[in-house]
């Protein structure tokens, strides 16, 4: 029986919605168990350089202080992204690579270690320090290798990226409430400006990467491309007559590491001024994977190949042109939406590339070869890790109020993500992934908290439902 249309449409979107959902779920679980009412100790971070929010400040003071904090944070992020663009432009790949590795190790070992210790304390798990140290160092080392894309199962790489996103997001939820909300809105606005404005740093980064036909340096999650079932796995690149697209992939992923962010000098001074210890480099450049389906850099929407990927299908139907069965996009315009830097310390606001990227492939006739050789990369979507982090921060902060806000914000964020993906297919250029989701998320949070929650709780406790 032929497969119907329902089986084919939408695979890529699910491929990116699932890890986002998993990351949000993990952050909500962490927040719910460890800090259900917000962090009691205030962590001095870069986001709180100006104003340290106290619980008994007045409304106006909190708002002004939060706004100042957010502005400072966005300025630092912007600076760091410009440094990243500069480093990428001058091809300082080695130092960026080293920095990326250092960042990944710090996030996994140090932040991961602190979270693990808190969990051990909470659940009273009997474990000794030696075992814990060995496990932690191993975990962090494998994570660094995963981010540099040694050949390992893609599930492991995806898992490590989700864990890195989760750890950084959990750290961000320790910020005080007003600062967090204003920061999210500020980052969404910055995202729009950075990606869409002609002088924006991310726009420049995207254009540089297109001009040089290279990958953008950043931590990017890539959903596994949907390969047809009978294909066992991609043969190594060297041994196969690679079709144009895959060759382009491997060239793009040539080891360039654009390190996002500060570069060595930044990190040194950051370490010197370390007031807290948070923070992390969230942008790691991913060493180009050898296998075509591996790659985690920002969010790149790779158009589908033979199968009618939904986004490709939307664009073809909308554009109205005749799509043949093997129609895929001709151009390879990367649509990177946003490199966000998040690091609450001075250490490394490395641009975590967050955004959507749309890469077409022009294989045409090599479609069938692809499928036969198992190289058909159909519909892999990439999303920047910065997006993961900010979505999870929003949901984590919602979890500190009540689970109802979590559900509402989750639906809002997923709805925003879907809308952004559809816009991506229609507009076919770099798009920021944050604004729509964050706006919807914030709006739904406040609507739920102020209006929906009393309404539903009142009805439900009287057992009157509809």
């Amino acid at each position, binding site marked *: 029986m032929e497969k119907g249309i329902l089986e084919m449409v939408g695979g890529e979107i*699910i491929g990116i919605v699932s890890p986002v959902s998993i990351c949000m779920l993990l952050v909500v679980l962490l927040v719910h168990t460890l800090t259900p009412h917000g962090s009691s100790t205030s962590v001095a971070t870069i986001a709180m350089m100006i104003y340290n929010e106290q619980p008994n400040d007045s409304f106006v003071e909190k708002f002004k202080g939060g706004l100042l904090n957010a502005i400072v944070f966005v300025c630092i992020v912007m600076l760091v992204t410009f440094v990243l663009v500069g480093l990428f432009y001058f091809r300082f790949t080695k130092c960026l690579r080293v920095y990326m590795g250092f960042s990944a190790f710090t996030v996994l070992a140090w932040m991961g270690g602190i979270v693990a210790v808190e969990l051990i304390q909470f659940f009273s798990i009997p474990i000794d320090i030696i075992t814990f140290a060995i496990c932690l160092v191993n975990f962090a080392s494998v994570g660094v290798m995963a981010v540099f894309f040694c050949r390992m199962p893609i599930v492991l790489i995806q898992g490590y990226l989700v864990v890195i996103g989760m750890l950084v997001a959990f750290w961000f939820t320790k910020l005080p409430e007003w600062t967090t909300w204003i920061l999210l809105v500020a980052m969404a606005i910055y995202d729009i400006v950075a990606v869409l404005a002609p002088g924006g740093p991310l726009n420049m980064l995207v254009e540089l990467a297109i001009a040089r036909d290279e990958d953008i340096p950043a931590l990017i999650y890539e959903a596994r491309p949907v390969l047809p079932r009978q294909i066992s796995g991609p043969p190594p690149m060297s041994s196969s007559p690679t079709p144009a697209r895959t060759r382009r992939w491997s060239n793009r992923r040539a080891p360039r590491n654009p390190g996002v962010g500060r570069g060595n000098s930044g990190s040194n001074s950051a370490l010197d001024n370390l007031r807290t210890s948070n923070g992390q480099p969230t942008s790691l450049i991913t060493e180009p994977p050898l296998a075509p389906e591996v790659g985690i850099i920002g969010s790149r929407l790779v158009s589908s190949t033979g199968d009618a990927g939904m986004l490709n299908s939307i664009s073809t139907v909308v554009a109205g042109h005749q799509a043949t069965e093997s129609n895929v996009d001709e151009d390879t315009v990367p649509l990177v939406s946003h490199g966000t830097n998040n690091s609450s310390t001075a250490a490394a606001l490395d641009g975590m590339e967050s955004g959507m990227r749309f890469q077409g492939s022009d294989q045409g006739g090599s479609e069938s070869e692809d499928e036969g050789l198992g190289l058909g990369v159909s519909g892999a979507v990439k999303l920047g890790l910065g997006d993961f982090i900010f979505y999870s921060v929003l949901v984590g902060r919602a979890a500190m109020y009540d689970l109802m806000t979590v559900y509402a914000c989750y639906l809002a964020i997923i709805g925003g993500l879907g809308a952004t993906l559809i816009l991506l297919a229609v507009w076919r250029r770099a798009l920021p992934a944050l604004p729509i989701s964050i706006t919807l998320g914030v709006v739904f949070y406040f609507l739920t908290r102020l209006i929906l929650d*009393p309404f539903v709780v009142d009805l439900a406790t009287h057992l009157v439902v509809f």
Partner: protein
Amino acid sequence: MTGVGGTGYALIALGPAFSLFVTVIASKPFLILTVLGSAMMWLVSLIACAILWRAFLPGAVWTFLPLLITVVGIQEAVRLYYWCLYLKVEHFLNKLAAKVSKPQLVATDKIQIAIASGLGHGIAHSVFFCLSLLTPAFGPATYYIDSCVHMPLFLVAAFMGLGFLLLHTFSMVIAFNALAGDKHFHQLFVPVMHLCASLLTMVNLLPGGCIAGVPMTLICAVVTMAVAGKIVWDKTSTGSAELGNLQRVHSSSSL
């Protein structure tokens, strides 16, 4: 009542939804997106209702009657709007199927989309009305409300959540079929059943009413399931007859 109790309540409310999801929906990405989309639309309609009625709550008990009538009206209007959106999506999918030389949407596909839409509504309902109450249930104690001293609040809420989940899921199947085939009886059946089920929950306001309220909700759900089942049975038995004819035609033409 600790983790076991809390998980038990959550499974009562959402277990059938979970098994429906895993068997019917999880294998088809488009259906997962449909579930998420319809859940979001239900949430938006709920927020609209809440904005409308927020000023009046918490209020006197009699305010529940106009509240329920208006709210069910709004939700049925949203269902009709959802049906219009579905027509556009169906058109888009058929166009896409034509472009990539796949078969057009058949009856089973449409029923699956209807189930996914209904499940989205139902899961959103259960999550907001039942799961969000269950957070204290994972703690060490339990809670009874004044008008229902026979069962803990969590258990009653779980059963009501289950009833309404099934009601929403299968009334969407009935509604899609009725609106497509323009069958007036079924078109009226859905809003009337929804309204009846909601008004019957007002029985829970009476002291000791939950003993009657919970079974009545579940009976409404079962009736809706039966009607939906009959519709699907009729459709697939006529459909399979057509399919059998087609296969015979194909095999004879290929000879």
